[in-house]
């Protein structure tokens, strides 16, 4: 792998950039692999990378039905944070954030992690209670967290409207300073390049059409590019997890929904942090290009269409203007949708299944991007050792039978 640096760029500039190598190969699939990862998004590529790097597995293929990084990796709002309520979530997301913090150097690819701070706003006394509870839990879990009152919010993000007469006024916020944003595409490309350098075959335009089993054990996959044998299969197919599960005769507690996002036209820097409001349904940050990047909640209905309904966008912009009245004359430039796989408890599944050698990593819902490194790291461990790491053990499929859910929906906010 050619090391990327300003020096290599300068050297290549002298030769008209004619000598840059491919960032990854486009190999033909081999007939057999030790591990096949289904899904060439950030999570799948990270899994392959850590399998090769941390566990010495070399004979790995990542099968991607379209172009790598073309699913939710390309469609999210790039927010990174680890300030989750429950111990189990905090642990895995914090592992992920720690990996983020050294990722550019580790994979020699600038993923442009920008730790500008994430505010989660509270708009009701119930929100305040929930926020303080989360900050306290984070702190004791060694996850950086602060509680800001409304004035503190205003100080941290001066353009926010904290008027008490707002319909749902800002009463305070949690702040995670280490949270922020990263460049979504670069994450997929960086992991792809690093995994490729360790010998991982990334095979694009290769759709899995069947899972082959011998009794209770997987033996390989059928694909649009032929059958490929495998000792183990890790499914990291996000919104399409259920489709793969059905091929293997497994049921998942997962439903797929559209999740929409949008960007404004690029404007000069105006907001220097990430602001999220679960209560009024909007989150906002500004990209390195100057676009306001915004997201909201999922569309209610099941879908595989990568598009949602426009009223969701309009509602989100109304909420945005309640918080940021100065954005009224800024213009929405582009909207898009992804398909997110949601679990009943809004927590993921990283788990073995009733089929030997078949593992699933799914159910990340609206929160998958931030988890990319940690998810890959834990899933690689699970695939290599045939048992979960302590970090992902709680995120098993069996929790739906035992009832040990990790319910990140949090408090319902209902009060007398």
């Amino acid at each position: 792998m050619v090391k990327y640096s300003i020096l290599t760029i300068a050297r290549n500039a002298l030769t008209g950039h004619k000598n840059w190598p491919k960032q990854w190969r486009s190999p033909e699939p081999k007939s057999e692999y030790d591990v096949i990862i289904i899904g060439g998004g950030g999570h799948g590529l990270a899994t392959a990378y850590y399998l090769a790097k941390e566990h010495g597995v070399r004979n790995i293929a990542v099968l991607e039905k379209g172009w790598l990084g073309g699913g939710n990796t390309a469609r999210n709002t790039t927010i990174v944070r680890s300030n989750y309520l429950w111990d189990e979530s905090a642990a895995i997301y914090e592992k992920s954030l720690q990996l983020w913090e050294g990722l550019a150097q580790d994979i020699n690819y600038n993923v442009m992690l920008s730790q500008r701070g994430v505010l989660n706003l509270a708009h009701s006394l119930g929100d305040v209670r929930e926020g303080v509870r989360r900050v306290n839990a984070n702190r004791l879990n060694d996850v950086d967290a602060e509680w800001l009152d409304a004035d503190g919010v205003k100080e941290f993000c001066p353009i926010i409207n904290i008027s008490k007469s707002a319909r749902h006024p800002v009463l305070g916020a949690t702040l995670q300073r280490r949270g922020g944003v990263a460049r979504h595409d670069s994450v997929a490309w960086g992991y792809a390049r690093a995994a490729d350098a360790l010998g991982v075959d990334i095979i694009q335009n290769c759709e899995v059409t069947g899972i082959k089993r011998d009794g209770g054990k997987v033996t390989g996959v059928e694909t649009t590019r032929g059958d490929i044998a495998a000792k183990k299969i890790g499914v990291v197919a996000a919104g399409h997890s259920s489709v793969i599960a059905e091929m293997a005769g497994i049921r998942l507690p997962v439903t797929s929904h559209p999740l929409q996002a949008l960007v404004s036209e690029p404007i000069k820097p105006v907001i220097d942090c990430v602001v999220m409001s679960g209560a009024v349904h909007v989150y906002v940050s500004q990209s390195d290009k100057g676009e306001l990047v915004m997201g909201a909640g999922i569309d209610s209905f099941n879908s595989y269409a990568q598009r949602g309904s426009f009223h969701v966008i309009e509602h989100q912009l109304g909420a945005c203007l309640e918080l940021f009245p100065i954005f009224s004359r800024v213009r929405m430039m582009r909207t898009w949708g992804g398909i997110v796989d949601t679990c009943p408890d809004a927590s993921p599944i990283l788990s073995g299944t009733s089929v030997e050698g078949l593992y699933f990593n799914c159910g990340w819902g609206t929160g998958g991007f931030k988890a990319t490194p940690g998810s890959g790291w834990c899933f690689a461990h699970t695939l290599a050792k045939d048992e979960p790491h302590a970090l992902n053990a709680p995120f098993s499929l069996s929790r739906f039978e035992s009832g040990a859910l990790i319910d990140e929906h949090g408090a319902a906010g209902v009060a007398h």
Partner: protein
Amino acid sequence: MLNIDCPWCGKRHETEFRYGGEAHIARPEDPAALDDTEWAEFLFMRKNTKGYFAERWLHNNGCRRWFNVIRNTVTHEIVGSYKMGETPPKLPKSAGGAK
């Protein structure tokens, strides 16, 4: 913005409705007779079909009736809607990306 055909009111904007997920999941007659796995099946496991999918909607800003819809989750095409307890309409032969 889907245009959903309420069997009582006719076609209305999606914003008048609430989604109810997969249709035809009957609550078990005797939950106590089920083991944890079977109970989890009822509670959490869902079809999540890619293609024609039977799902429930509630016309909550309208007649407030629950009903079922057959919709293609790839194209969002709605084949038809039917009242609770009625037989689903026939599915078209595979269309647009459906599996």
